[in-house]
């Protein structure tokens, strides 16, 4: 005999839990043309993929910071739940102030955590996704050291993504795992990269204690190290 479920039971999600995701994206002049267009397409894809997942759309908090122009980091899209996220349109120009942008991201992360704590909302470890296609043009060493320390202190997970001519040795200094943490994007596979990011966020946003998040494989977009 197959007993049916109890009638008239409300089954709704009362959990207030968030997974903060910060995208720190290189919009320097060298990203002009195909790269920035592909990046914009990738962001739109991230938006639609996150919105399509019922759990991720409620739990992932997105912040987009671009860096370029006159040595400036800029908040392109302020913290919002994925269901309210609208992919910003990014433009390429200027220099590569990676240090400044990462510093902004680290400050934003700590502020966001404090706001969540204040609101009684639990959260999982924030992700800092750092993408670049070149060499930093600012004083990046201090920011890199702080970013490394933040990751060592378990305050954030750092994912450096190197595009084209990016210096993987420099980008590795932003992660506690060094150069081996850096993934190199195959060509301009931004689409695959953001599909992977969305799939990873779906896993992480509903991860539970003791469950190591099984992230999807990166081989659709990353160059395999030999």
């Amino acid at each position, binding site marked *: 005999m197959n007993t049916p479920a109890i009638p008239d039971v409300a089954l709704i*999600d009362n959990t207030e839990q968030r997974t903060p995701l910060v995208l720190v994206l290189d919009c320097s002049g060298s990203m002009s043309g195909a790269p920035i267009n592909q990046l914009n397409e990738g962001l739109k894809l991230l938006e639609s993929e996150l919105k399509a997942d019922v*759990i991720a759309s409620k739990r992932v908090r997105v912040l987009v910071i671009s860096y370029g122009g006159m040595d400036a980091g800029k908040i392109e899209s302020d913290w919002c739940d994925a269901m309210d996220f609208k992919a910003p349109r990014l433009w390429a120009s200027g220099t590569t102030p990676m240090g400044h942008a990462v510093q902004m991201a680290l400050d934003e992360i700590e502020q966001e955590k404090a706001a969540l704590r204040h609101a009684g909302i639990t959260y*999982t470890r924030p992700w800092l996704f750092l993408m670049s296609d070149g060499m930093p043009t600012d004083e990046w060493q201090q920011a890199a050291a702080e970013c490394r320390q933040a990751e060592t202190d378990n305050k954030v997970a750092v994912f450096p993504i190197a595009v084209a001519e990016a210096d993987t040795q420099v980008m590795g200094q932003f992660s506690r795992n060094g150069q081996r943490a850096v993934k190199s994007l195959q060509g301009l596979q931004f689409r695959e990269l953001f599909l992977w990011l969305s799939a990873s966020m779906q896993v992480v946003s*509903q991860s539970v204690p*003791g469950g190591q998040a099984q992230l999807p494989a990166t081989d659709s977009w990353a160059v395999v190290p030999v």
Partner: protein
Amino acid sequence: MSGQQQLPWQVVAAAVIGTSHVAANQPCQDAVAWQQHDGWLFAAVCDGAGSAAHSHIGAQHMAEGVTSALTACVAALADADQAQASAVLQQVIGQQRQQLQALAKRDNTAINDYACTLVGAYINADGGWLFHIGDGVAVAEFADAPACISWPENGEYANETVFVSSEQWSKHLRLTRVPAAPTVLALMSDGAESFAMGKQRSGLFRPFIDPVLRYLQGVDHSTATQALAATLADPRTGHITSDDKTLLLAWPTAHAGGNTPA
């Protein structure tokens, strides 16, 4: 069970596998166990760690072992203060850990492979204690007083907690006094917490629990168990959690009709 009617507590429980474990071809890693002895109810829910290879065995062992070992401690538990109750639980949980360690040694594994959380309660007509290591929730509700709730112990991040297998387990054992016999006792794993607990953190989520209790209190034990399992397996829960979902509900037999509207 025909004997159920004579016992002082009515208990209905179910542990249901989550969609992520189905997809990964893993077993349900939650376990639930309870025993009644001499007017006491001993109950426990354990949630095996997703990353530990044999956590479903650890959870089963711990839930059954702790409830069963506690039945032998009735004399020490009656009128125990917090220090005495804690001492009994330290001993009982410590024994179960030793058994898991022996199992790990025999099978050439490590106790961390059996990692699980533990949330439990022992109560009689005068009340008792909630006991807790890690996550999951225990709730004792009363007709005319705020609920006693034992909340999860997480780290900074919601997806980190403490396990019974940890070296520091005894420092993380938390006890909460239940001052009188509750109208309802609920134990749950974190998978069920999202929909069984209310947002206000003051107790169980009424639109969930009220229809559940009304139904369970009006049917026989076997139907009740199957209906609770079917409810925990409702496809709507898949939009809330992909984790295993366990819920144990108990209420005093004498009150069985009291909560049912005429």
